[in-house]
C-alpha cells in the first residue's frame, strides 16, 4: 500500500522563515526533504499579512545569520524575492497547497496526511507553522460580500470612502489610523476600551476618536451585512451592529474585519505536541535540539516562541543539524562567550550558564533561550572592596546581578565594617529604578571584591517579566526594598541608632498586597476605619480634606512615598481622603504588622511619629492659606507630578525675551526643545511645554531600538545614534514634547559679524529643514547633560523666571515666593 507514497528523511511543514531555512539547509546538505506549504505561495505571513512595501527589519542586529537562505533588511518585496531565488538555486523541494491534516506513526516512519488525501512518509517532521493560523471570521449573514476583507494591502490606494473596521486589536487600530487620513473611518469595538492593544496604538486611536477623525461604536456586535443598491450614488453595503443603545446601521463602502487569528492549539494537541499548561497563548514544550514532547517531531520559529525572522531562520538551520546528529552551539554562542569569558576562571559557556542558574535564585526559572538573550545584552563589571556603586539620588539605568561578593547600603561614601544598615543580599541592584522609576536612597558600597552582570533595562524588563515566578520574586524584592527605603528615609541615616537589616522587613513585605487603581478612584474616605497604610509604587496619590464643602488637596504622594501612616500611629480614623490622580499601583501594608515591625527600632518609630506631627501642623497651616492650596490643586490637575524635573516659568517676573528658547536652540543644533508660550498656567505659574522627565515615561514604553533611557540623574535621554525615527515616542508622550526633526547642520555663528554687520544667523535662531527625505530623529529636552552649568534655558533667563526641578521643590519655591510677595 505504501509503495506509491513519497518517502523523505525530513518533512518540513510551513515555508516561513524557519521552515524555509530548514529546507534550505537540508537541500544544501543533500538530505532528502520536502517543504509543505498550505497556500500557493511561500511565507504566508509575510506574503499575505504584511502591508505592501512594509519595511522588514533584521533584529537583533548583532546576532549573526546562520542559514543557507539569504536574508537582509529591506522591503517585504525584496525579502520575498531573495527567498524565491534561493529556492531555485538550492533546489528546495517545495510542495504548495499542501495543507496538513494529521501526522501518524512514530519517529523513523511518520505518515503525514494532507487535506487533499495525499500521504507523505518522513523519518522526522519539523513543524514551522507559525502562529498566524486561521484568521477569525464573524460568521454573520452577508459576510461573503466582496466588500468584506480581512486585511489591508495598501491604505494609500483607498480614498474618499467610508470604511468600517471591526476589531480593537493592534492591526485593526493600525489599519484605521492609516485609512483615516483619506477616508471616513468607523471602528466597531466589541468592548468599551482599547486596552488590549499596545499602549501607543490605544492612545493614538483614543486621540483620533476624541478629535472626531475616527468614529467608534463601543460594545458593538456586528449582526448582519446587507448589500447596498449597487448604484454609484449609494453605499456598497449596510452593516447592522447591535449596541447598548439598540441596533445601529452603518452605511459603508468597505468592511475590514480584524478579529485576530484562531489559536492552533487544537491542531497541535491532535499532533501530540505537549504544552506546559492549558493557556491558549502558551508555547509548546521544547527540549534540546528543538524536539517537542513527541519524539522525532521538532518545533521551530514563531511557534517555538521566537517571533523574529533572523532567529527563526537560525533555528531552521540548527534543527537540521540536530536531526543530522551534529550538536552545534546556538548561533549566538560567540556573543554569549564574549560576555562570559571576562569571568574569572571561565571554563565554558555551558558551565557558566548553569552556574548562574544554580547560584542565583532569581534566574533559576529562566529558560536557556531567555538566559542567553539576557547574557548577550549584558556586560561583566568588576568592583573592588570599598568601591561606591551608587550614590543617593542616582537612578540606575541598568540592572546588575551580583555574581559574586556582597554589597552594603550606607549613609557614608566609604566602607565601614560597622555600617549599621544592611541591604539584603538579593543579588539584584537597580530593581527600584526599573520597576518604580525611583532613585537610590543611600550609598551602595562593595564590601568585598565583586563581579556584576550589568544588563540594560529594555532587555532586563522583557526577560525578567516573561516568567511568572521571576516576576513574583522581583516583586517581593522590590516591595521589601521600597518599604526599607521609606523606613530609613524617615530620618537622616546618621541619626539612626539601631542596626537595621533590610531582611528585618522581609515578613512585612511578604504580607503586603498590591492594588492597581485607575485615575480618580478613592482609596479611602475621610473618617473611615484605618487598618493599613500604603506605599505608592507607581502613579500619584492626592491626599485631600473636605473643608467648607470643598475638597482641598493637601498633599501629593509620589512613587516611593507612603501615606495613611498617621492614622496607624495615632490609632485614629482616617483624617483625610486619599484618591489616585492617575493610574496608580499601591502596596498595601498591614497596619498592626507595620507597628510591630517598627517598634523594634525606637529612633525610626520616634521619627515617624514626629513626621506625623509635622504633617498635621503643616496641614493646618495650609488650611489657613487658601491660595497655597489652590496652587497645590493646580499642580495636581496639570499632572506636573508625573514629572521628576519640570520646567516652570514664573510669569510674574518673565519679560518674554525668549532667551530660554534661544539658549535651547543654540545648545541643541538649532532646534529648541521647549516652547515657552505653550502649556498650562495658573495665576503666574506657567508650565512651559518641555519634557518633564516622567517617573513613568510614556516615550520609553515602545521604543523598538531601545534608544530611550534614564540617565543616572533621573533625566530621560534619547540616543540620536540609535533612534530610528519611528515616532512611537512622539505618539506616546502625553505632553507632546517629543518631536521628530531632520535638522540641517547649524551654521557656525559669529556674534561679531552678526552684531556689527548683520551677517550670518542670529544667536538662537532655529534651523529650518528643507529636505523632506532626510532621516528624522526624535528629540526632546535632555536637561543639557553636556553642560556643566545645567539646563541652558534656566541659566540664560535674565530674571530668574525659568526654573527647573522636581514638582515638590517647585511647589515649595512658589509657596515661598508668594509668601515673600505678601510680606513685601
Amino acid at each position, binding site marked *: 500500500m505504501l509503495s506509491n507514497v513519497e518517502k523523505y528523511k525530513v518533512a518540513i511543514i510551513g515555508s516561513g522563515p524557519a521552515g524555509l531555512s530548514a529546507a534550505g539547509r537540508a537541500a544544501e546538505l543533500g538530505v532528502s526533504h520536502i517543504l509543505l506549504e498550505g497556500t500557493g505561495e511561500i511565507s504566508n505571513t509575510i506574503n499575505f499579512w504584511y502591508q505592501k512595501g512594509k519595511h522588514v527589519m533584521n533584529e537583533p542586529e548583532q546576532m549573526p545569520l546562520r542559514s543557507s537562505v539569504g536574508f537582509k533588511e529591506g522591503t517585504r518585496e525584496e525579502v520575498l524575492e531573495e527567498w524565491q531565488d534561493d529556492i531555485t538555486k538550492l533546489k528546495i523541494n517545495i510542495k504548495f497547497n499542501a495543507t496538513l491534516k494529521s501526522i501518524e506513526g512514530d519517529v523513523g516512519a511518520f505518515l503525514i496526511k494532507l487535506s487533499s488525501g495525499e500521504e507523505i512518509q518522513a523519518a522526522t517532521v519539523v513543524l514551522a507553522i507559525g502562529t498566524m493560523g486561521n484568521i477569525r471570521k464573524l460568521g454573520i449573514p452577508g459576510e461573503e460580500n466582496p466588500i468584506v476583507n480581512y486585511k489591508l494591502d495598501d491604505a494609500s490606494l483607498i480614498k474618499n470612502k467610508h470604511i468600517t473596521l471591526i476589531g480593537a486589536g493592534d492591526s485593526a487600530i493600525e489599519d484605521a489610523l492609516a485609512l483615516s487620513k483619506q477616508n471616513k473611518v468607523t471602528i466597531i469595538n466589541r468592548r468599551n476600551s482599547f486596552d488590549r492593544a499596545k499602549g501607543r496604538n490605544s492612545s493614538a486611536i483614543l486621540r483620533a476618536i476624541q478629535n472626531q477623525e475616527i468614529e467608534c461604536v463601543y460594545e458593538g456586535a456586528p449582526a448582519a451585512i446587507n448589500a447596498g443598491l449597487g448604484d454609484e450614488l449609494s453605499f456598497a453595503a449596510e452593516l447592522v451592529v447591535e449596541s447598548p443603545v439598540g441596533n445601529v446601521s452603518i452605511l459603508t463602502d468597505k468592511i475590514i474585519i480584524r478579529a485576530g487569528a484562531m489559536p492552533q492549539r487544537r491542531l497541535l494537541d491532535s499532533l501530540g505536541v505537549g504544552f506546559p499548561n492549558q493557556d491558549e497563548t502558551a508555547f509548546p514544550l521544547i527540549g534540546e535540539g528543538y524536539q517537542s514532547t513527541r519524539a522525532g517531531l521538532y518545533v521551530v520559529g514563531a511557534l517555538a516562541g521566537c517571533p523574529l525572522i533572523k532567529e527563526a531562520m537560525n533555528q531552521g538551520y540548527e534543527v537540521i543539524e540536530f536531526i543530522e546528529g551534529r550538536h552545534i552551539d546556538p548561533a549566538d554562542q560567540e556573543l554569549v562567550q564574549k560576555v562570559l569569558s571576562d569571568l574569572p576562571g571561565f571554563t565554558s559557556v555551558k558551565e557558566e550558564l548553569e552556574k548562574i542558574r544554580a547560584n542565583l535564585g532569581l534566574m533559576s526559572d529562566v529558560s536557556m533561550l531567555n538566559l542567553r538573550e539576557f547574557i548577550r545584552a549584558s556586560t561583566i563589571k568588576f568592583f573592588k572592596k570599598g568601591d561606591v556603586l551608587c550614590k543617593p539620588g542616582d537612578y540606575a539605568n541598568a540592572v546588575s546581578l551580583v555574581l559574586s561578593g556582597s554589597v552594603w547600603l550606607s549613609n557614608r561614601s566609604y566602607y565601614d565594617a560597622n555600617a549599621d544598615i544592611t541591604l539584603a543580599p538579593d543579588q539584584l541592584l537597580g530593581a527600584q529604578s526599573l520597576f518604580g522609576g525611583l532613585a537610590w536612597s543611600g550609598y551602595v558600597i562593595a564590601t568585598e571584591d565583586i563581579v556584576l552582570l550589568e544588563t540594560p533595562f529594555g532587555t532586563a524588563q522583557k526577560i525578567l517579566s516573561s516568567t511568572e515566578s521571576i516576576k513574583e520574586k522581583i516583586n517581593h524584592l522590590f516591595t521589601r526594598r521600597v518599604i526599607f527605603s521609606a523606613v530609613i528615609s524617615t530620618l537622616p541615616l546618621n541619626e539612626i541608632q539601631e542596626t537595621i537589616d533590610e531582611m528585618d522587613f522581609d515578613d512585612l513585605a511578604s504580607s503586603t498586597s498590591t492594588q492597581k487603581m485607575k485615575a480618580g478612584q478613592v482609596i479611602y474616605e475621610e473618617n473611615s476605619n484605618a487598618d493599613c497604610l500604603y506605599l505608592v509604587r507607581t502613579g500619584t496619590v492626592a491626599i485631600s480634606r473636605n473643608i467648607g464643602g470643598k475638597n482641598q488637596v493637601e498633599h501629593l504622594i509620589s512613587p516611593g512615598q507612603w501615606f495613611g501612616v498617621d492614622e496607624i500611629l495615632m490609632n485614629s480614623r482616617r483624617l483625610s481622603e486619599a484618591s489616585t490622580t492617575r493610574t496608580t499601583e499601591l502596596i498595601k501594608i498591614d497596619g498592626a504588622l507595620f507597628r510591630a515591625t517598627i517598634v523594634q527600632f525606637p529612633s525610626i518609630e520616634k521619627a515617624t511619629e514626629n513626621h506625623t506631627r509635622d504633617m498635621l501642623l503643616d496641614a493646618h497651616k495650609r488650611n489657613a492659606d487658601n491660595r497655597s492650596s489652590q496652587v497645590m490643586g493646580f499642580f495636581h490637575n496639570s499632572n506636573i507630578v508625573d514629572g521628576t524635573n519640570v520646567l516652570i516659568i514664573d510669569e510674574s517676573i518673565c519679560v*518674554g525675551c525668549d532667551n530660554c528658547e534661544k539658549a535651547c536652540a543654540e545648545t541643541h543644533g538649532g532646534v529648541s526643545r521647549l516652547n515657552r508660550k505653550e502649556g498650562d498656567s495658573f495665576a503666574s505659574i506657567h508650565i512651559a511645554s518641555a519634557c518633564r522627565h516622567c517617573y513613568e515615561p510614556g516615550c520609553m514604553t515602545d521604543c523598538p531600538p531601545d534608544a530611550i533611557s534614564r540617565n543616572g540623574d533621573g533625566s530621560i535621554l534619547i540616543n540620536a545614534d540609535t533612534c530610528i525615527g519611528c515616532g512611537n515616542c512622539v505618539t506616546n508622550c502625553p505632553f507632546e514634547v517629543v518631536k521628530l526633526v531632520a535638522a540641517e547642520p547649524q551654521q557656525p555663528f559669529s556674534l561679531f559679524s552678526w552684531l556689527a554687520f548683520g551677517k550670518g544667523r542670529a544667536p538662537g535662531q532655529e534651523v529650518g529643514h528643507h529636505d523632506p527625505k532626510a532621516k528624522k530623529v526624535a528629540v526632546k529636552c535632555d536637561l543639557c547633560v553636556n553642560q556643566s552649568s545645567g539646563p541652558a534655558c534656566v541659566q540664560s533667563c*535674565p530674571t*530668574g523666571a525659568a526654573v527647573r526641578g522636581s514638582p515638590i521643590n517647585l511647589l515649595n519655591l512658589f509657596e515661598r515666593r508668594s509668601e*515673600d510677595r505678601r510680606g513685601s
Partner: protein
Amino acid sequence: MNRSFINKDNFRYLKAAGILSGLSIILYVLHQPVGPPSGASWLGYTLGTVAALIMVWLAWFGVRKRRYQNTKLSLNTWLSAHVYLGLSLLVIATLHCGFQFDANVHTVAYILMVFTIVSGIFGVYYYLTVPALLVKNMKGTNPESLRQRLRDIDMVALSLAHEIDSQVHEVILYSIDHRYESKARITMKDVRKLRSVGAQLLSIREVSKARSSEKTPKTFKKKLMESALSINELYRLELSKILIDLSFDRLSGDKLNNLLDFVNEKENCLLKLNLDSRYKNQLKTWLLFHVPLSLAAIISLVIHIVTVFYY
C-alpha cells in the same frame, strides 16, 4: 527669590556697588588735589580707570547674553550685577570729572553715559512692573485663545446678524472689517465714521428711523453724555446703539441680547490684546534706546580717552 534680579544672592551686587560708590565718595572728600577736583589728579585717573572698566564690562553684557554654552554664572546673576554696577557708575564717573562740565567731547561722553543709565532705569522699572501687569491683564487666558475667541465671535455674530436682516448684517460686517487686533486702538474719527455708517443704514429704513430716537434707552444717551467714557467704550456704545436701533422692531429680545453680548465681548478681547501688546512693547522699546546709546557711549569713551592722552 521673589524680585528677580533685584535681590539676587541676598543683594550681593547692591552691596558691592554700594561699597564701591561709598569708597569713591570718601576718597573724593578726603582728597586734596592741587587746584580744583578734576580727572587729572591721581584720584581722577583712578576713578576714571575704574569707571571705564565698568563701562566696558557693562557693554560686554550684550555678548554674554548670547553665550549659551557652559556658562559659569547664570544670566540672572549677571543682570543683577549689571544693574547695580551700572547705577554706581553715576557716582563714580561724576566724581571722576569733579563736576566739571563744558561743551567738549568729555562732557558728551558723560551725557551719553547718563542717558544710557537712565534708559536702563526705565528698563529696570518695566522689568519689575510689567510682567505682573501682563499676568493680571490676561488672567487665566492667553493671547492665542483670545485671538481664537475673536475669530469665533466674528463668525457667530455674523451668522446671527444674517438671521436678523441685511442691514444688521452690514453693521457686523463693517465692525469685522474695522475692528481687529492690529487696529485695536481707535480715535474719535472712527466713532464718527461708525455713527455715519449707522445713520446711513437707518435712513434706508424710514420707519425705524422715526422711532429710533425715542426707542433708544435713555441710559445709553446719558452714558454717551458722560465725559469720563473712554473712546473704546464710546465706540462700543455707538455700535450697540446702532444695532438696537436697527433691530428693535424686528427681533426677539434674547437674540438682540446675544448679539450685544458678542459686541461687548469682542471689545473686551480687543482691549485685552491691545493692552497685552502695549505691555510687551514696553518690555522691548527701552532697549531700542539703551543699546544704541550704550554703543555711542562706548565710542565716545574711546574718543575721550584718546583725546585726554593725546593732548
